[in-house]
């Protein structure tokens, strides 16, 4: 695990994460520049105008032009950052969802304190679910009578996905607000009860990672952990076959 997580940003294995990391880096470089320049000036002024060396203050100080340049510069920089970097990634993530044909669709249903993952199976159609049917053995409330449900695969705290394929996840929650957090995928999205929120991502490397909950959801929030496994397509298919309902085999 050490190779994934250090003192900087976690490793990024997503196709879109580069844009997010880049905006974080640009922003921090600009912040450092502004702060250091400003701080050096502050220290210089405090030193130069200390009462011992400068016993009489100047009542009328001339107007400074430079700060206006800095302020306009900050405004222009922020505008560029928004238009060129922030908006496009948001549009990419929220408005350019992959088509259902190309992507692997899953449902992620959060509850205190577990992640239920629901794959539609070979038919590509999610079986009907009903809150009234939810119990310990059937946490998703999958209606077994629905033909579309027969081939559905459900797991708890185990999310397997194939590498290099768009994943379209529909997030929802059974009880309280949770937040679906994949640090290595630069994905964090609230799961709100009563809503289904789509989120999509594509992994470009394989490995064993974590799903964390990022929104306080109760006493077990700190241990609401799932496993996020990115496999090669072959391995993923093998895992999928293994987990398919027995009657299909």
């Amino acid at each position, binding site marked *: 695990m050490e190779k994934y997580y250090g003192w900087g940003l976690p490793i990024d294995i997503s196709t879109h994460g580069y844009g997010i990391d880049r905006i974080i880096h640009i922003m921090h470089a600009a912040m450092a520049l502004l702060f250091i320049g400003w701080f050096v000036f502050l220290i210089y002024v405090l030193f130069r105008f200390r009462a011992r060396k400068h016993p009489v203050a100047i009542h009328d100080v001339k107007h400074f032009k430079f700060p206006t340049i800095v302020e306009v510069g900050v405004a222009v920089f922020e505008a560029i950052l928004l238009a060129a970097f922030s908006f496009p990634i948001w549009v990419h993530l929220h408005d350019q969802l992959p088509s259902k044909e190309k992507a692997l669709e899953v449902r992620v249903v959060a509850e205190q304190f577990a992640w239920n993952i629901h794959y539609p199976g070979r038919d590509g159609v999610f079986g009907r679910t009903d809150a009234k049917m939810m119990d310990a053995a059937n946490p998703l409330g999958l209606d077994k009578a629905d033909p579309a449900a027969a081939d559905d695969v459900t797991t708890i705290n185990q999310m397997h996905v194939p590498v290099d394929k768009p994943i379209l996840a529909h997030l929802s929650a059974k*009880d309280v607000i949770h937040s679906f957090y994949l640090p290595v995928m630069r994905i964090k999205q609230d799961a*709100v009860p009563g809503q289904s929120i789509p989120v999509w991502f594509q992994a470009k490397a394989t490995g064993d990672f974590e799903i964390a909950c990022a929104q306080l959801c109760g006493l077990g929030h700190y241990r609401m952990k799932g496993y996020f496994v990115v496999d090669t397509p072959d391995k993923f298919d093998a895992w999928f076959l293994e987990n398919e309902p027995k009657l299909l085999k």
Partner: protein
Amino acid sequence: MSEHASHDLPFWRKYIFSTDHKVIGIQYLITGLLFLLFGFILMLILRWQLAYPGQPLPFIGHLFPESQMIGGIMLPEFYYQLGAMHGTIMVFLGVVPVAVGGFGNFVMPLQIGAPDMAFPKLNMMSYWLYFIGAVIMIASFFVPGGAAQSGWTSYPPLSNIASVGQTFWLVGMAFMINSSLLGSINFITTIIQLRAPGLTFNRLPFFVWAQFVTSFLLLLAFPPLMAASVMQLMDRVAHTSFFMPTGLVVNGALSSVSGGGSPLLWQHLFWFLAHPEVYVLILPAMGIVGEIIACNTRKPLYGYKALVYSVIYIGVLSFVVWAHHMFLTGMGTTMSAFFQVTTMIISIPSVVILTTFVLSLWGGSIRFSVPMLFALAFLPMFGVGGLTGLPLGLATADIHLHDTYYVIGHFHYVVAPGTLFALFAGVYYWFPKATGRMMSDKLGRIHFFLSFIFMNGIFLPMFIMGLAGVSRRLYDPTQFAHNLSTQPLNVVMSISAWLLGLSQIPFIINFFGSIFRGKKVDNNPWKATTLEWTAPSPPPHGNFATEPHVHRGPYEYSVPGAKQDFIPQSAPEGAR
């Protein structure tokens, strides 16, 4: 107006149920400071669990009941109570009462030359509503299930299904909200109606402007939270469904509520208050810093008008940025774009204010008094807090940083070494006015330098942890692999926090000791220009022997050709 024959009043009318703005201000200040200490101690306990998860708390761990700690090992129940109540107490019971209730009440009427607030009895009622709210908040620790534990933000449905402590939280908040509303009406009326003759708006000290805008924020932002609190209270006690959607399954059982509500509605109402609230925390602090910088540089503030316009501009804009706390709730592109743009725009006046303060130092004759040290430290600390808000305001960067320690670091830099340093500066600065005695310079310097070091020791590592992806509100961060590499920083932060606690001892000794033993000083020990320094120290009931008349702007320091390096606002025209 209030009775002027204060010496005839019995003790309890003079010092406890007083209508005098100065007594109420000091009541607010001391109560608020005690709550700051209490909220800080909650965090000192909590930080043990973060640094050494699952290990028994030494020395005092066995003193806690089994509902909180077992064998000295903190339970998650207690951890989340500490977290939620730390936030609530620091913001609503600590900083706002000190900054607005304390300094606003004590200083503002003196600075505008008024004998008291416009509504002295309403003022007393504000304090006592605050006091009752605070008692309810503290009492909630002793009810079954303990205090509120859904974070200071109290997001439903979690808060709706929480134990009875949450009900106490809501009722307590209702009292705090009404206290602030009464206070804000009083402040606005006082500033508009009771200014001394000649004290026009463009001659107002910057501190009064800051309080004026702050009062409008409180007046306009709190009612939505009041509504939201009542709605959540109804959800909890009357089983309505304002925030409960249909078909909730809690603990494996289908919820019996009728449903149809929206959990996100609470977030909108809450942040519609809580973002302006951030500026309620910071504007009075800026006001204090402005006063102290002008006095200790012996020159007028640079760009007084730019400062005033910036504060007004911040006040207006602070009402249209709230949803940047909610980028990850499923917000679409248009809404996120709107709130990103407003958030970036509101950063500009903050940059203007900081720049103006630094430029005010240029050409000054800078005295490094204790209040000035705290005021100067405010500048870079608020700078760090403000700058680190920018990545969070960009929805895209927020995907990674949202709800991590980066957020905690950001707002603590604004409020802890930012606002709190300004509040300390204010205490050292106006202490001689309130008591007629100075606080110890030596103890003040010790307090400042130790606090400065350890504040940064706590909050700087938070940015590193946040960038590494460590989430906030984790009872045991070591449960996740991605938290392990930065876990040693939690030890650094906790030790810094405990040392910061020890660093407050000089302040506590200094504060209470100087009331009785501090060096006696005259009415204007800092040689300042604003009206409060022309009143006796401590000012009597009614403040001024004769109504002051104002003849000039607030910061006439080092006027060329003048006998002294300051000319009080009330000195007659042509005085040199």
